[in-house]
């Protein structure tokens, strides 16, 4: 991109991203300066994610002792993101984007694993709240109707050292490989069916209806 128009388009794209987070564009859209382009796996669209220099990102906020954007239930939301990461990041030696889509039930199972035994309604409520928050911020893409969850474009902003920590986290989370029915805080995947009621039977894109 060159000249006045290019600069204006860039400024516009940045303003949009500032207001709305990562931008979903047609696959052939130009990439403004300072943004990274993430193609959708099926090639129908591309995401433009603003990437700011290290010296201007949220770490500087911490350094300055300023509060970042307020996040409700930060711990539960972080756990839910960790659960999604565990389900959607198939090979931790690859970049997390685009990852594979996971069934909502699958993510919820891992999430329940992370939060420990909870009242079913409370569990469901905090999971949905967390999914909504993360979906809105672009950390994951939640197809509520299809009951499918996958990682959002913002995960591409994690730096190399961040990913090293996340790999560690990935390994520490237990993945319910063949039996998503099990919600149990123990590390035994095949262990006793716990206190939690049975979730969706299969990790297919089944309807995520309330129980």
């Amino acid at each position, binding site marked *: 991109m060159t000249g006045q128009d290019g600069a204006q388009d860039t400024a516009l794209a940045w303003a949009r*991203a*500032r*207001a*709305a*987070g*990562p931008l979903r564009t047609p696959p052939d859209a130009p990439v403004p300066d*300072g943004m990274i382009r993430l193609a959708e796996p099926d090639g129908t669209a591309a995401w433009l994610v*603003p990437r*700011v*220099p290290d*010296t*201007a*990102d*949220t770490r*500087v906020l911490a*350094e*300055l002792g300023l509060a*970042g*954007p*307020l*996040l409700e239930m*930060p*711990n*539960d*939301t*972080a*756990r839910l*993101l*960790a659960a999604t990461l565990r389900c959607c990041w198939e090979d931790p030696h690859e970049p997390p984007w685009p990852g594979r889509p996971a069934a909502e039930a699958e993510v919820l199972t891992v999430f329940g*694993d*992370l*939060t*420990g*035994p*909870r*009242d079913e309604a409370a569990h469901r409520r905090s999971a949905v709240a967390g999914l909504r*928050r993360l979906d809105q*911020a*672009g*950390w994951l893409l939640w197809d509520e109707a299809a009951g499918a969850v996958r990682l959002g474009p*913002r995960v591409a902003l*994690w730096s190399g050292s*961040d*990913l090293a*920590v*996340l790999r*560690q*986290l990935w390994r*520490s*989370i237990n993945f319910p490989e063949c039996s998503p029915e099990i919600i149990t*805080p123990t590390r035994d995947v095949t262990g006793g069916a716990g206190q939690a009621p049975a979730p969706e039977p299969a990790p297919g894109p089944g309807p995520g209806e309330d129980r």
Partner: protein
Amino acid sequence: MTDGPGEAVQPGLDDLAGEAAVLRIYRQAFAVLAREAEKMILSPQLLDVDEAILGAFAESGSDGLTEEQVRNACRRYPEATVNRRFEVLRGYGAISKVFERPNERYYRAAFAPYIMLLFLRRIAERGGQSELHQLLSMEHESVSAESATQQDGRASLERLTQVFRLIANELSIMSLGADVEQLRENAQLLWGNEALISRAEDVHAVVLNRWPRLDRECQWLRAGLAAYKDAIDAAAARLIERAGTTRALGLLPAEEWRTFARTADIDRLGAVLETFVFDAPGPWFDPQAMTEAVESGGRPEAARMPPPRPAGDGDAPGDDDGPGDPKDAGDRVGDTVAELLAGSRSVDIADALRAAPDWPSARRILAHMTAAHHDPDLPYTLTWGEGLDADDTETPAWVTRGSFARDAGAS
């Protein structure tokens, strides 16, 4: 300033630093003169002596002073020192005889040296940047003047070249060798420098346009300015490197920033942030924080239980305005409206409401009447009529006509 002659008063470190700064400038400015007079200034006290001598002359009036009178006026200082400074001042013409004749005993002082002294102290305090600005304006005026000659232009250029070379040298030496503290102290040489440079460039442009033959001198000035810019960059880079990614704004006092934020126009304010980029306002998930959240999860969380209530209290809090037991509430409403009717069968709503001292109490009365009307256990009826009563001297000013009455069948 010390009081007695030779009295050994130990000045504080701050005093010493201030004196040292004055002395440094003074020494720089007078080195040439003093060397000629074979009198270098070697201690800050000498400056005070100079000031005292000139002060004595200022007080003396139009007659002038003899050498003895000066010595008497300056008796606070060691006599030998006063004598020596007197000779020095006379040597370069700051003090001269009232009449130039062999046996003249009276002396007078010129005002220029004292002004020089004030000027030097000011430069030492403020770094001399405003003087530099004034110098630049003066140079600009003199080279723009109709009567200016090529000679003037050349002289102007040479002076400016000298000035900028000297500043650049001082800065680059400091940015290479001095510690950051010293650099920060001399930061006034760094800020506001764009205006200085652009004014010098103005002078340069005027001279070059008027006398193109001076291009060699102009080139020197350009080189001097470039050296100054480089020195600024080097010094600023060292300071910024020290300040870190948080860009500690300690370079300038906080008030300076506030003033700027309040007085700058939008463009200048925006220019400050031109090189800053902000992230979209989405929450950021630090992997470390995620790990901590995951590790702290899984522990059974204490379920939130409502605090225990005293047994037997039931669901009726003993609050006056709270919705108590329906029976109690009905009773209370009944009592209130019975009081309102005060034995009569029916009451006009406007009277009842306007009898209340203010709107909140009138509202409460209306609420009680309405409640009584709807309560099947209470024999009261609220009847609304047509039209509004308006009276701006009353509260409430507007009341719908109507009446509140005890049912006929009731006691």
